Structures are given as C-alpha cells and as structure tokens.
C-alpha cells in the first residue's frame, strides 16, 4: 500500500530530498488552476478532516467569502492533545515540507495571505523541526513575498508557528483562534462560523495538520485517484495510532476502513501475553468505547464506526486487556476532562467535577448502585448543553462506558452503600424527616 502522508523515503524531511522527489511540484501545478478549480477538486476527492469531526475539507473551504475587504486567514491545527493521539508530531518530524506545500495550496485556494500553525507548547522538539523546515522553505523562495517570483504568480502567503501553552481546549477551533489572538482559550459561540467571523473578525479556515498534508498528493494525482483509496465515503489513508496494551504501539498509515482487528492483531502484533481484549477506544479518549467482544468486523472509518455507535475521532486506538480496571481508567479519563474544562459553561464546569467525584467513590469501593444512573444522568445533562464539543467529549466516555459495560460496573458497586450527604445547608437545618431515613 502506498503511503500518502508519511512516505517511506529516507531523509524526506530535508528540503533537498523532498524537492528531488517531486516536492513543491504540486503547488506549481495548483497555481495554474483557478481557486474554484482547486476547491472543486478537493471537494470531489472526498477528503474529510482528520482532526475529529471528519468534515469535508473542500466544502469547508467553499464557505470562505469570495470577495471580502478584510484579510483572510488560514489556521492549521496541530494542538494534538487528545489522549491516544500522536500523529501530527510524525508529520512535523518526517514530512514537514508536504505540510508546508499543502498550506501553500490551501492558502491559495481560499486566498489567505497569512497562515498560523498552532502547535501544542509541549512539542518543543517538533516546533524546532518544523521551524527549520519553514526557514528552509523561506530561504528557497517557496514561502512569503519571494514565492511570487518563484512560482510566477501574483499571490503570496506568510506562514507562522504559534506555540500553545498547555490547554487541551485550544484544539477546539474557536478556542484556538482566541488563543492566537492572545486571549484565554475560551471557545466562541457559533454561529457566526470562522469562515465569516474568525481571527480578529476576519474570514478564517481551520484545518488539521494531517488533512492539509493530504492536499499535495490530491493535486498531483487528481481527485479520482484519491477517492478510490479505502472507503468511498471517507477516502484516503488514515494515520492510525495504536497505544495501550498492544505489542507494537505506534502510528500506522493504512487505507480508511481497515479492520480494527487487523490493526490490533496484524499490524499491532496483538495484546501482550495473548490476553483477551476487554475494551477498545477507537478514536482518542473522548470517543465512545467498544467492548472487546464487539470489535469483530468493525471497519475504521467515519461512516462504519458511526454504525457501531462510536466515531473515528483522531484515529487514536487505545487497547485495554482483560485485566484492566475499567473503573480506574474511566476515573482517569473523567479527571482529564475535569482538568481541561475551560469553565465557561456550567454543565461542563460542574458536571465534569461531579462525574470525577462519583467515579472516585467507585474506585474506593464506596459506590452505590444509584451512582451508575447518576453518572449517566450527569453525562446526559452535559451533552448538548455546552458552547463547544468538550461537553460531549467529557460525557461520552462516561455515558457509553457505563451503558456498554453495565455488568462490569455493577460488580463494583453495592446496594449496601448509602450515599453520604455532605450538604452543609441541609445538615444545619432542622428537617421533619432526618436525611438518613429519607434515603432508606
């Protein structure tokens, strides 16, 4: 199988090697097309976003206003903070120029003269690697003012790296824009959507690093070629990330629709000690988990996973063997979302904390049967009631882990356990019926 995003060519990250292998020729070709033609090609190719929502990239670009007296911006999302995801760093390290070339083509298609690549702050090493590649591209006249001469066009764009500083929420597109603007990374209410009102109120498009790296090969080989790779409704390759209880963890570039069992056993070398799989999270920690006995025949692409009640997310597959303590795992996931909630919306800010408290009670063995329903109820009250999708990201793992592993969780709670009441207002008030009696 041909690798599109991470080709196995030695030293491909060096600009000389990249150019020798036909690098920046796709950009040259793209600049002979009109902007509409490029958007049309990418639309027809069926390229979908690789950041989690799997939205059609070409369609997203077409939302950008054709005429605007304001500057237009392109943002590349390399915040990559979803637990289980570690694909973008491979692109920064092994194929930075294809990303830069993809940015040039995209910026031309939407006529953006400035582009920001948002990279999480912890990726110091990868920021340096990408900056080096960017500097090389600049000194070769491929980016910035000089590209007008190099490519013989009237268009140019500047590319800057913006370093995050440790906030998961900045991977959310509107929060990312606030972060670039120098504000707290609060998500914005949509509409207005970024294409109308993005960075500094100007038309803006935000795409994932992997999505953009797919653009040059599409221009080079044509949309028909791309649309025939993998599953027709979600074509192309996906950088699947294998982690957890797996013999050979890592990033595997495979056609979309690869069987989950193939990923685990054929490519990942199976589970250490040949243990059974208890649970698999298919697309980063926020996606609904699958039971180990449900994974037979599951294809890894957006549409197929939807049919199994989960989603492709970032393609980060987390495998857990039969000896895993799911209660502890879920409590850890809940802790993450509690920590990362930005605090704007009450259901998320409070709900994530409540879920963590209840799950910690389960971990310590003091969980009551009522707790399981309570957890699902809290999750349901977060979902759909928040500005951004962190609400869903926090609610889904809890809700689906408990409903899909109900038998497992029921063994960890007891009807003997009575929920402690620590509400001070109640305890200071004389009530007709004592709270203990009320509970029984």
């Amino acid at each position, binding site marked *: 199988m041909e690798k599109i995003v991470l080709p196995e060519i030695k030293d491909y990250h060096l600009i000389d090697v990249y150019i020798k292998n036909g690098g920046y020729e796709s950009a040259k070709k793209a600049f002979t097309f009109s902007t509409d033609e490029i958007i049309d090609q990418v639309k027809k190719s069926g390229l979908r976003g690789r950041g989690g929502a799997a939205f059609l990239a070409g369609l997203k670009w077409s939302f950008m206003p054709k005429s605007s007296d304001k*500057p237009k911006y392109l943002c590349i999302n390399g915040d*990559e*903070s*979803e*637990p*289980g*995801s*570690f694909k*973008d*760093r491979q692109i920064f390290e092994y194929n930075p120029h294809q990303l830069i070339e993809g940015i040039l083509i995209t910026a031309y298609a939407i006529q953006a003269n400035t582009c920001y690549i948002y990279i*999480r*702050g*912890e*990726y*110091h*090493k990868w920021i340096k690697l990408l900056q080096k590649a960017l500097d090389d591209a600049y000194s070769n006249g491929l980016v910035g003012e000089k590209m007008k001469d190099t490519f013989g066009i009237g268009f140019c764009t500047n590319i*800057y790296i*913006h*370093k*995050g*500083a*440790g*906030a*998961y929420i900045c991977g959310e597109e509107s929060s990312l824009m606030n*972060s*670039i*603007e*120098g*504000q*707290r*990374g609060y998500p914005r209410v949509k509409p207005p959507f970024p294409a109308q009102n993005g960075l*500094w109120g100007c038309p803006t498009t935000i795409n994932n690093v992997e999505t953009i790296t797919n653009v040059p090969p599409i221009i080079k080989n044509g949309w028909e070629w791309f649309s025939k790779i993998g599953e027709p409704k979600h074509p192309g390759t996906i950088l699947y*990330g*294998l*982690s*957890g*209880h797996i013999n050979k*963890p*890592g*990033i595997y570039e495979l056609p979309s629709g690869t069987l989950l069992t193939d990923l685990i056993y054929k490519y990942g070398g199976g589970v250490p000690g040949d243990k059974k799989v208890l649970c698999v*999270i298919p697309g980063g*920690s926020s996606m609904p988990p699958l039971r180990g006995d449900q994974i037979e025949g599951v294809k890894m692409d957006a549409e197929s996973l939807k049919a199994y009640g989960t989603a492709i997310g970032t393609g*980060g597959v*987390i495998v*857990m063997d039969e000896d*895993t303590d799911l209660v*502890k*795992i879920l409590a*850890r*996931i809940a802790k*993450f979302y509690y*920590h*990362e909630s*930005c605090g704007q919306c009450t259901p998320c800010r409070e709900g994530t904390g409540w879920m963590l408290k209840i799950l910690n009670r389960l971990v310590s063995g003091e969980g009551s049967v009522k707790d399981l329903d309570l957890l699902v109820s809290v999750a349901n009250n977060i979902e759909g009631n928040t500005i951004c999708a962190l609400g869903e990201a926090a609610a889904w793992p809890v809700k689906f882990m408990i409903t899909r592993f109900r038998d497992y969780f029921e063994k960890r709670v007891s009807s003997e356990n009575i929920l402690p009441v620590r509400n001070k207002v109640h305890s200071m008030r004389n009530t007709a019926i004592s709270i203990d009696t009320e509970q029984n």
Partner: protein
Amino acid sequence: MEFKFSEANNKNIKDILGKYPVKKAAVMPVLYLAQEQNGYISNEVMLEISNVLEMTPEDVLGVVTFYTMYHQSPVGKNHIQVCTNVSCMLRGGYEIYDTVREKLGISNGQVTQDMKFSLEEVECMGSCGTAPMIAVNEDYYENLTKEQVINILESLK
C-alpha cells in the same frame, strides 16, 4: 523586584510583533520569553508585559492563569513532568510517577529544597505510542522502565 526584558529579548519581541496584526496577540510568545529570562512569571513580569504590549495587567494575568505551561512560582532547574493519562497509565505511567515522587521526595507541584527538581503530573503529552514517558524541561524521555527513570534522575544531579 522590577523586571525588564534583556536587550536580546527586546529584539525578539520586535520580531514576534511582526507576525501578528495586533500587539496583544504577541502575549503568549512574549510570556515564554519572559519565563525563560526570569524563570517564572511574577507580578512584575506581567506588569512589564502589559506595558510593552499595551494591555491591562489583568488581561495578562488572565492568559497566564489559563495555560498550564506558564509558572507563577519558581520551578526546579529540572522540571520533571510525568504523564499519567490513559495510554501511559495502561503501560505503567503511575508506577513511573511514584518512582519519581519517591526518588525526589516531593509530590505534585513541589520543588526540592536545593531547587534542582520540581515535579508535575501532566496530562497527555502525545507520547501514547511510546509510553510511559517523562519530560525533563523541554526534552521527552520515552518507553521508560522504573530503572531507566532512576538513572535519568541520577544523571541530572
């Protein structure tokens, strides 16, 4: 203690400002510069940044407190960050965390008395495929065993 940017950093700030259409957008990269120069973000640092970037000090404070990588108090010379999120946890992240804690004799958010080490339990660092991991300041150490962690910590002393 009053804080002023070094000559070199004044030049860096000029370069950073060239990347953005408004001054305020430079606050995150400028905070990084200040943290590198001063070791941490003190109130004086925030005041100076608010002057340089023409923002209110409160806006600078708002940014500092939102992001976990800006330190409002001094950290150790070697700031040890251990990921304990799911993928690392499944491969022994908590054992690594406990090893570091015992070896250094400090818990989350603390600094050793000689200021050589500080410890932070962090969320996913993007090393899921090479778990478990620690980061020392800016450098990642991946695919670790307890013994390797002890060796790393000893080599840093």
